[in-house]
């Protein structure tokens, strides 16, 4: 069995366990009721999204430094996964927010930062695709990915302060005291998504490497 198949199988098993823990083996929340189960998929997608952004930053810096096409394949793959998972984070967050808060969206700093990141990483993919030369596109896409990742803390805190200094946030997420089965479900699904991320990244890198060879380098 290849490494990729091992990772894929492990991700499948862990995800199945996480779904069981999240839907069956954990109790409903005192405040949110059963809706807390959406958190077991929302929090891990957000975690994975930021993992993908961090990977883009590290791989992008390594690529610009070493100019090794393998790092480019990694940067490109991580950028694409960052778009995928920031998008899923926004979608699952909305699906949770609508029944619990009564709104699809609030101007919470985490939401705005994630949405801005989604747009920046979409732009990174566009720059890569529209560059007149794929090798130049690789460099430019890495630059946008790095710039976006470096800008994240600045964006996050400026939005936090922008929203809180003038008006208190209309809806605050209360402190959620997690019972052990809930914490277990959350940690298990974070672990499952981390392995899933590793599997997707490895698969995407293989595709990128093979397509690069097909293009003649």
């Amino acid at each position: 069995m290849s490494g990729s198949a091992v990772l894929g199988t492990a991700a499948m098993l862990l995800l199945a366990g996480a779904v069981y823990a999240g839907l069956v083996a954990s109790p409903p929340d005192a405040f949110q009721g059963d809706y807390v189960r959406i958190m077991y998929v929302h929090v891990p997608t957000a975690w994975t999204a930021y993992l993908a952004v961090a990977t883009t930053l590290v791989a992008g810096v390594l690529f610009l430094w070493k100019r090794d096409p393998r790092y480019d394949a990694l940067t490109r793959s991580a950028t694409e996964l960052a778009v995928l998972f920031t998008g899923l984070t926004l979608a699952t967050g909305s699906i949770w927010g609508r029944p619990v808060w009564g709104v699809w969206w609030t101007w919470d700093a985490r939401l705005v930062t994630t949405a801005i990141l989604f747009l920046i990483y979409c732009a990174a993919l566009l720059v890569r695709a529209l560059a007149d030369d794929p090798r130049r596109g690789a460099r430019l896409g890495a630059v946008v990915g790095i710039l976006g990742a470096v800008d994240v803390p600045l964006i996050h805190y400026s939005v936090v302060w922008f929203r809180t200094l003038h008006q208190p946030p209309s809806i605050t997420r209360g402190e959620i005291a997690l019972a052990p089965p809930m914490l277990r479900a959350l940690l298990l699904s974070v672990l499952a998504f981390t392995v899933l991320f590793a599997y997707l990244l490895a698969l995407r890198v293989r595709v990128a490497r093979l397509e690069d060879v097909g293009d003649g380098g």
Partner: protein
Amino acid sequence: MTPALWIALAYGLVAATVLLYVLRLRRRLRQARPHGREGGKS
């Protein structure tokens, strides 16, 4: 909508997106892989 539907929506959306993405990557992998080299390089 009942809680079960919202939960199904969230889980289903993530599962379907990831599944479609994996299937697409696997198809691209098959297309990009030169013929006759299956399993030669992993």
